[in-house]
């Protein structure tokens, strides 16, 4: 009866693999998925695992000609099947046309989802060699990509099918640049590796004797651990270490530094109770299921309003009222923690209109990079700790961990390519501490990686913000006063919420010239998963509640919001208090021109019909438009250092602790150095992002990559170049100023034919090194204005985004395709869609996060893409060698408020909270 297979044969990429069925190593067990077998047994790591529940498409392979999800098939079911993985596409050293097209169109950002997307594209083209755009969207509709490579992927698939691709999304004005690499369409330096599945992310690294850590998580939102019984686990073979609050050192993180890595108290559903290291993931999972915990349950405070009530249960003894200090030492003694200056009372008296209202942005969405957070730690006695971690900024992690462990521990952080972060993975210290302590106990390298549901339920969310405020405005759009209370819900602790508040308060002033402020924030802790760093860092959240308040005043005074934002955005000579509490005078470009061009491309003046008026009505469908703006003066934040060494053969190596995490910044600094040194891109090497071999680097965050990291690296290259030219000047007998270098030769500018190769200048057994450093500069801000048109069906409450136009000025484009990808990213990473459907759903009674999976957590699919255009001007910024400034980080930030405004205009009434889901629209329409 029935048949128990004894042997499984798979034909992977034309090669036969035979396995016996059983529980030993190198055997296939019935509970192994095909994805596991392909990656861990056969060793083809190009197939990625992300959600592991059939909703994201990352693990797609082609089986007997059709695309399937390898995480949702048991290997034993696939006996005799032919399987094609990403590694099988390359034939005789030649890439498949699909792969070539992906490279050509830079159809990826972090690249983690790319192998799966390529496999579905390949299957589509095999079945249907000439697909329509709609066919492509449908075929790829099961693929998640959080960076938003969607548009460029569709271009690539069209290209591969032989159709003409007419790109019209990135709108640049013609520049007569004399530069040879900067601003040109070049391929990412890692492009080939990405499309062939050869990029290594954290889970692709292999270690001998690796142990796997798993976390036992709390069932309660608020409870005291009375007893933990691990006796059953201690008996298990293959379980090597158990951490509980009772046996770990008192290591603390957060702002202020009070959050224990493992505590006797649990403060949200899913909080860490114990951590186990075992020889396999399966064993570690079994082990944590055998730990018995007795809790003393405490009433949870889930909503900030309940946390602030008198007599509410306290999360921390140190903060009995559940309010954290708003100050952060990180930004110095005067870190911006409120905006109180001028005379708000007088301002309100001078206003033509005063509006008082309340808005909330409390959807606590998850930035949700495709690759879940993960770390591998190796502790070597007595005090050496090495971490391989998925992060965008390894040196930043070293900094954080040094403060937690103390300076006597010698910490080294290495990051392989990072499968997306959007800021969030900078908050991995707890996982890193767990892995480190487990390694210390066992002497083995230990990996702690989150599953996607852990990622969704226990890792970085956006802060929740509520504003109860008052605006005074004059008829000419001058804001005379802003006053109000900001309630910032940070969840169970704060990592950098104070810093986000400081930056957000600075960004508010960049958007709004106003002389009188009284904005009083309160950071509240609640019994839910923590909020923290996400693209838009504080400003996006505060804007989302402040802009609707401004809108109500504009409505009363009949002011066009586009004109309002254009008038009020910071201009050269204006200033702002920045995050350190210091006043900075802005010395960048005037963004009005970019805004005007954006308005023209969007057709703002035709579409704008006045406040709360739809642009167009068609049956139950109402179109509406909105606009918002954001700017960030952290483009020049913090310190960067780099070395550049010149090799005699005409190559150069950059030493910089910068990780590729999807923004393309690694390629961009290569381009900058190549331009400075007159070398080809392929002649530039980059050190691994390893804090042991590179100098200090704060990391590619907050759009500081172009200006801060770029300037440090350029300075290092120029420093090396000057040394080279000085040496050469002796050989030429000419002043170094009269020399330049190209293609590994130094030549006389006036007579380029007179040239000497580098090796004759440097010598074969030497290198020449340059050092560059960038010091913080907050006098520049970037800018992004987003125009959004929506269509709302008032019969169903459904909102569709029809068109987005983003407008910015970047001084100089470094990489056009990479820039476009970053700007398309406004639809990902908890961006625009937080206005309509992206949210983490919290059970307000128990604190359980109800949608910790990729079906119930909503994200944008290939099937639903609005029209998108980006107006990009290039007015030179004098402070950067190539006159450039970064902008990627803020792509997500103005969109939600613009969309919110567009919906209000479409349906003709004001809404109060994000996201505007169908239930809220139907309710608002009914009330109206």
């Amino acid at each position: 009866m029935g048949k128990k297979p004894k042997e499984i044969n798979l034909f992977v990429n034309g090669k036969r693999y035979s396995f016996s069925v059983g529980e030993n190593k190198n055997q296939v067990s019935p509970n192994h998925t095909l994805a596991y077998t392909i990656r861990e047994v056969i060793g083809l790591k190009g197939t990625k695992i992300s959600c592991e529940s059939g909703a994201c498409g990352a693990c797609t392979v082609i089986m007997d000609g059709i695309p399937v999800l390898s995480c949702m098939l048991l290997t034993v079911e696939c006996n005799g099947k032919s399987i094609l993985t990403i590694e099988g596409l390359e034939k005789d050293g030649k890439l498949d046309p699909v792969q070539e097209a992906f490279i050509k169109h830079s159809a990826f950002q972090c690249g983690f989802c790319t192998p799966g997307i390529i496999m579905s594209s390949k299957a589509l083209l095999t079945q249907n060699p000439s697909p329509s755009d709609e066919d492509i969207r449908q075929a790829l509709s099961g693929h998640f990509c959080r960076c938003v490579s969607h548009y460029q992927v569709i271009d690539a698939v069209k290209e591969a099918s032989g159709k003409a691709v007419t790109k019209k999304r990135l709108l640049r004005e013609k520049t007569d640049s004399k530069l040879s690499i900067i601003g040109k369409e070049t391929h990412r330096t890692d492009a080939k590796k990405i499309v062939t599945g050869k990029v290594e992310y954290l889970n692709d690294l292999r270690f001998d004797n690796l142990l796997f850590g798993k976390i036992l998580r709390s069932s309660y939102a608020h409870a005291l651990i009375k007893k933990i019984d691990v006796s059953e686990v201690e008996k298990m073979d293959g379980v090597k270490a158990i951490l509980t609050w009772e046996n770990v050192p008192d290591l603390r993180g957060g702002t202020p530094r009070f959050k224990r890595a493992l505590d006797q108290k649990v403060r949200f559903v899913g909080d860490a109770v114990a951590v186990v290291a075992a020889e396999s993931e399966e064993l570690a999972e079994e082990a944590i299921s055998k730990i018995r915990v007795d809790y003393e349950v405490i009433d949870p405070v889930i909503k900030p309003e309940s946390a602030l009530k008198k007599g509410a249960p306290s999360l921390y003894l140190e903060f009995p009222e559940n309010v954290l200090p708003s100050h952060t030492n990180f930004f110095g003694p005067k870190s911006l923690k409120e905006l109180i200056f001028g005379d708000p009372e007088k301002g309100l008296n001078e206003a033509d209109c005063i509006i008082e209202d309340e808005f909330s942005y409390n959807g606590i969405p998850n930035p949700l990079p495709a690759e879940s957070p993960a770390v591998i730690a190796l502790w070597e006695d007595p005090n050496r700790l090495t971490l391989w971690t998925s992060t965008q900024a390894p040196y930043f992690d070293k900094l954080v961990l040094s403060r937690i462990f103390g300076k006597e521990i010698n910490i080294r952080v290495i990051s392989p390519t990072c499968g997306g972060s959007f800021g969030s993975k900078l908050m991995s210290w707890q996982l890193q501490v767990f892995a480190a302590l487990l390694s210390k106990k066992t002497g083995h390298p230990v990996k702690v990686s989150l599953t996607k549901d852990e990622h969704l339920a226990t890792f970085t969310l956006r802060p929740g913000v509520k504003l109860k405020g008052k605006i005074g405005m004059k008829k000419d759009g001058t804001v005379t006063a802003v006053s109000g209370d900001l309630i910032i819900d940070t969840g169970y602790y704060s990592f950098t919420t104070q810093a986000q508040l400081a930056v957000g308060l600075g960004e508010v002033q960049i958007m709004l010239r106003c002389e009188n402020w009284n904005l009083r924030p309160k950071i509240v802790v609640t019994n839910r998963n923590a909020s923290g760093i996400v693209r838009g860092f504080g400003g996006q959240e505060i804007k989302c509640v402040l802009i609707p308040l401004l809108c109500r005043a504009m409505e009363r005074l009949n002011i066009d919001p586009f004109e309002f934002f254009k008038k009020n955005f910071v201009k050269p000579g204006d200033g702002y208090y920045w995050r350190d509490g210091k006043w900075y005078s802005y010395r960048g470009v005037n963004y009005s021109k970019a805004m005007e061009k954006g308005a023209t491309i969007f057709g703002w003046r035709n579409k704008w019909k006045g406040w709360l008026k739809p642009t167009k009505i068609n049956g139950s469908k109402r179109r509406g438009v909105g606009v918002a703006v954001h700017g960030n003066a952290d483009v020049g934040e913090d310190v960067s250092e780099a070395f550049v060494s010149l090799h005699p053969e005409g190559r150069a190596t950059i030493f910089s602790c910068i990780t590729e995490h999807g923004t393309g910044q690694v390629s961009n600094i290569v381009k900058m150095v190549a331009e400075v040194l007159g070398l080809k891109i392929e002649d530039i090497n980059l050190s691994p992002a390893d804090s042991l071999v590179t100098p200090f680097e704060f990391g590619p965050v907050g759009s500081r990559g172009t200006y801060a990291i770029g300037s440090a690296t350029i300075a290092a290259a120029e420093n090396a170049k000057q040394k080279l030219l000085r040496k050469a000047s002796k050989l030429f007998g000419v002043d170094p100023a009269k020399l330049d270098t190209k293609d590994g030769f130094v030549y006389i500018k006036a007579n380029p034919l007179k040239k000497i190769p580098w090796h004759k200048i440097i010598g074969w057994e030497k290198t020449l090194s340059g050092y560059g450093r960038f010091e913080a500069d907050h006098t520049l801000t970037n800018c992004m204005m987003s125009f959004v048109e929506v269509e709302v069906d008032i019969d169903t409450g459904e909102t569709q985004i029809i068109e987005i136009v983003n407008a910015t000025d970047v001084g100089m484009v470094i990489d056009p395709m990479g820039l476009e990808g970053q700007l398309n990213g406004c639809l990902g990473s908890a961006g625009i869609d937080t206005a309509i459907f992206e949210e983490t759903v919290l059970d307000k009674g128990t604190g359980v996060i109800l949608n910790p999976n990729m079906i119930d957590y909503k994200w944008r699919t290939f099937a639903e893409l609005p029209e998108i255009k980006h107006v990009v001007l290039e007015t030179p910024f004098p402070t950067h060698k190539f006159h450039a400034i970064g902008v990627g980080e803020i792509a997500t930030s103005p969109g939600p408020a613009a969309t919110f405004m567009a919906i209000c205009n479409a349906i003709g009434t004001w809404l109060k909270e994000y996201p505007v889901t169908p239930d809220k629209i139907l309710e608002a329409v009914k009330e109206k």
Partner: protein
Amino acid sequence: MKKFEYIEAEDLEDLLSILWDFKNEARVIAGGTDLLSIFKDQYLLSYPKLVVNAKPVKELDYVYIEGGILKIGALTRLSTLLSHPLVIEKFPIIKEAIMTIATPQIRNVGTVGGNLCQDIRCWYYRYPARLGGPLICLRKGGKTCLAIRGDNRYHALIGKRCYAVCPSDLAIVLCCLNAEIIVVKKKNQRKLDVQSLYTPLGLSLQPDEIVKEIQVPCNYGFRQRFIKFTIRRPIDFAVLSLAGQLKFEKKDLSKWIITFGGISYRPEVVVVTKYFQKNEKTVEKLLEEIVRSVLVKAKPLTKNAYKIPLLKGLSRKLIHSLM
């Protein structure tokens, strides 16, 4: 995933014998896209000892018409139906529905039987063990349905203690088409209408029973249409779904058969026969009648009352598209 034993059924008889012997200890894997989620998330209190692979049972993979009835084998993949000429020609509504189900990769392995028999999507019920779960709700021996006092935006308007909704889009369409389901176990076979496959606390199947075949009569209406309302497309399960067909019994005497998903544990059916003229007034009258009739027992929970205007809005669209 925890360990389990695995065997492959050689044919239908073999499959039924295995189920007869193992009853509650065995689970059948067909497409597996739902079953593996159950194993991975361990949201149920029990874990099977044995997984029986039904894929080798080729005799349940077929689509043909016989005696005016479209017969679909339970192991037919969703993607097979999507491109099947009989479906495209005679039952475009089935194609319409399948295009909204999950994603292309899931449709490539997911089966018709699996779609009908998949577990409910209630987020309390499905909350994973790994995150401090599972949650003990009514279906798992708890005292109440956790959705009643919780976030019930996607839950039923008509509940019988449990407020989970029927997750299958295909069920809504097949019910509208008046299909029947052949259910088999060892030495026994029975026929169910689609509604009867679902009970307020789960499927009406015995542990050793499986869906064998779907029979759809070919006396389909003049027009057929499926509307699924979701937050985004595709991937999502229906917030509300409607399948409708319009038949003309005599000249002008129209028969409207409409089934609704997302309002209770099963497809809900409304049939209205009316002399019909194409104008807004009769549309509104018809709409009133349909909505009143389907919502007669509706008692919204704290967060799902919006489904009432939504259902009205979608019904209006459905009527218009069938006219």
